[in-house]
């Protein structure tokens, strides 16, 4: 069969194949496959990024535990207390490094190639989100396993672990979308790293990652309460230390709302930066 014959047949079927949603799923999966192949080929990157949160938990937990006032944090299980903070720290770190491929695509021109294709504008960002959630699920399972070895007992067991993964995924939606929007908005990658570096640590310090809300100075508590990280950490920490409580549902709702907002913002910014196209 000649290439032109193959071509004509493909064309005929493309135009009749599937609805808009099926095409969108196909786009997201194809782009996710691209990110996944690249990660698997970068063995060192893969090894370090998967192991990082577990290493942090061990070093941080072992080193800082003695200096912590058990009364201030409300538990004598400091490793269990830190688990939620470490997971969140990982999500923010993933968000920053996860925007890098988008920056490269933009700067090397591959983004133009993508934009000349008949794909939905949201599929690039959503594919990053799907990829990051898959990657960090592995990271979280590993760090939880290490926590179990260190003597932490999850108050809500395996169902609680699943909800921890859900809370992590919801926060990832916000973080991925926000850093993607930043990647598309900046003129060059230098600006991206300057802004991302400036924002990440304060975002963590101004949350309940290391200190519970009720022992914070009042002004800091105000800031922490509008920080979406706080809600993710609170949900995960409650699941790990206390058990099933209604506040978990509230946190998840807040995370969903912020996630949807960031995704809308990210897609809007993406459309804007790729030339006002429908």
């Amino acid at each position, binding site marked *: *069969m000649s*290439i*032109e014959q*193959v*071509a*004509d*047949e*493909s*064309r005929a*079927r*493309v135009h009749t*194949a*599937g609805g808009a949603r099926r*095409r969108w799923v*196909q*786009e997201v*999966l*194809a*782009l996710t*496959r*691209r990110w996944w*192949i*690249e990660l698997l*080929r*970068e063995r060192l990157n893969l090894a370090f990024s998967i192991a990082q949160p577990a290493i942090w938990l061990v070093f941080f937990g072992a080193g800082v535990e003695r200096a912590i006032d058990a009364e201030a944090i409300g538990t004598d299980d400091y490793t269990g207390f830190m688990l939620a903070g470490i997971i969140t720290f990982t999500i923010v770190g993933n968000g920053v490094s996860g925007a890098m491929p988008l920056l*490269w*695509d933009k700067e*090397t*021109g*591959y983004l*133009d*190639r*993508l*934009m*000349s*294709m*008949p*794909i939905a504008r949201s599929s690039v960002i959503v594919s990053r989100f799907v990829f990051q959630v898959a990657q960090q699920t592995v990271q979280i399972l590993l760090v939880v396993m290490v926590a179990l070895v260190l003597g932490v007992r999850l108050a809500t067991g395996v169902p609680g672990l699943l909800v921890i993964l859900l809370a992590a995924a919801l926060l990832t939606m916000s973080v991925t979308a926000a850093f993607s929007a930043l990647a598309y908005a900046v003129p060059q990658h230098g600006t991206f790293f300057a802004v991302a570096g400036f924002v990440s640590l304060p975002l963590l310090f101004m949350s309940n990652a290391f200190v519970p809300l009720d022992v914070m100075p009042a002004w800091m508590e105000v800031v922490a309460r509008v920080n979406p990280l706080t809600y993710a950490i609170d949900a995960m920490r409650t699941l790990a230390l206390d058990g099933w409580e209604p506040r978990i549902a509230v946190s998840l709702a807040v995370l969903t709302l912020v996630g949807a907002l960031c995704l809308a913002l990210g897609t809007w910014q993406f459309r804007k930066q*790729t*030339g*006002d*196209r*429908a």
Partner: protein
Amino acid sequence: MPHRLTTVADVAVAYAPVMTAVIETSGLRKVFGETVAIEDLDLQVEAGDVFGLLGPNGAGKTTTIRMLTTLLAPTAGTARVCGFDVATRSSEVRRRIGYVMQTVAYRGLLTGRECVEIEAALYHLPRREIPERAEAVLKAVGMLPHADRRWTTYSGGMQKRLDLACGLLHAPEVLVLDEPSLGLDVQSRHNVWEFVHDRRMGGATILLATNYLDEADRLCNKVAIIDHGHIVVQGSPADLKRSVGADVIEVATGEPERLRRAIEAEPWVKNIVGSEQGDLHVYVEDASLGMPAVMRLGLEHGIELGRVTYSQPSLDDVFLLHTGRELREVEMAS
């Protein structure tokens, strides 16, 4: 009741496409801040054309292409591709074009086959057909033997061929190639030319931007010469060259103005254009008679002549005639 189609000719008539322009722009304009990049551009590319946009760097070729591929919104005017407006029906346009960018698309750690398969999915080809289709396009550009090597190990020419293969995936109605042979070695340039030739034989419509005269001359059946965002002149390469005059005599001399005055009144001189380097281009009906005449007149007036050569008119002469500059010189200067 339709009558039965009995002969090949009947079939051809029954299925003959309605002749409409595949690409049509009218009054197209693009302004970046204070700079007018494209001014009042009217293009008409018919089905089956290999249409060349020829001009120096910065003439507005890429800006035009980015508007036609929906990557840039026009400031004013309209552009239609396959009947769809690029501004309002962009996704219909994207479905019908195969765009190969000027710079090679960076594809990281993927193999050639993976790149092609992923893009096939992005064009929504049915999943079961993707492997076969990927092989077909890789074969079409001679990359099948290298399909499972990583992209990073490819030479510049191979990377370009992979981009060309990706441009074919969804069997687009128009191929848009932006400077397809820029920066390639001789062998790879010939590969690109062969590629365009094969597609043309297969009936494809191609819009090709280039600043290589020989490339436009060799590949295109129509050429629009573009400079400073304007179309200077358009037509078939043969017609454009014919409009220049039959032959061109190039004379290098230290006193071009004196030589011009000495010969401009002669009846066999059709036109004289001075190049920026000080050479005179004398357009004559027949160079075999004109060359000795130029030399004789030079001697009579005591004008020292350096080199005297003649050539058939090229697209460079067309460019010189209409812009007063040589494309080669513009390229050197930029």
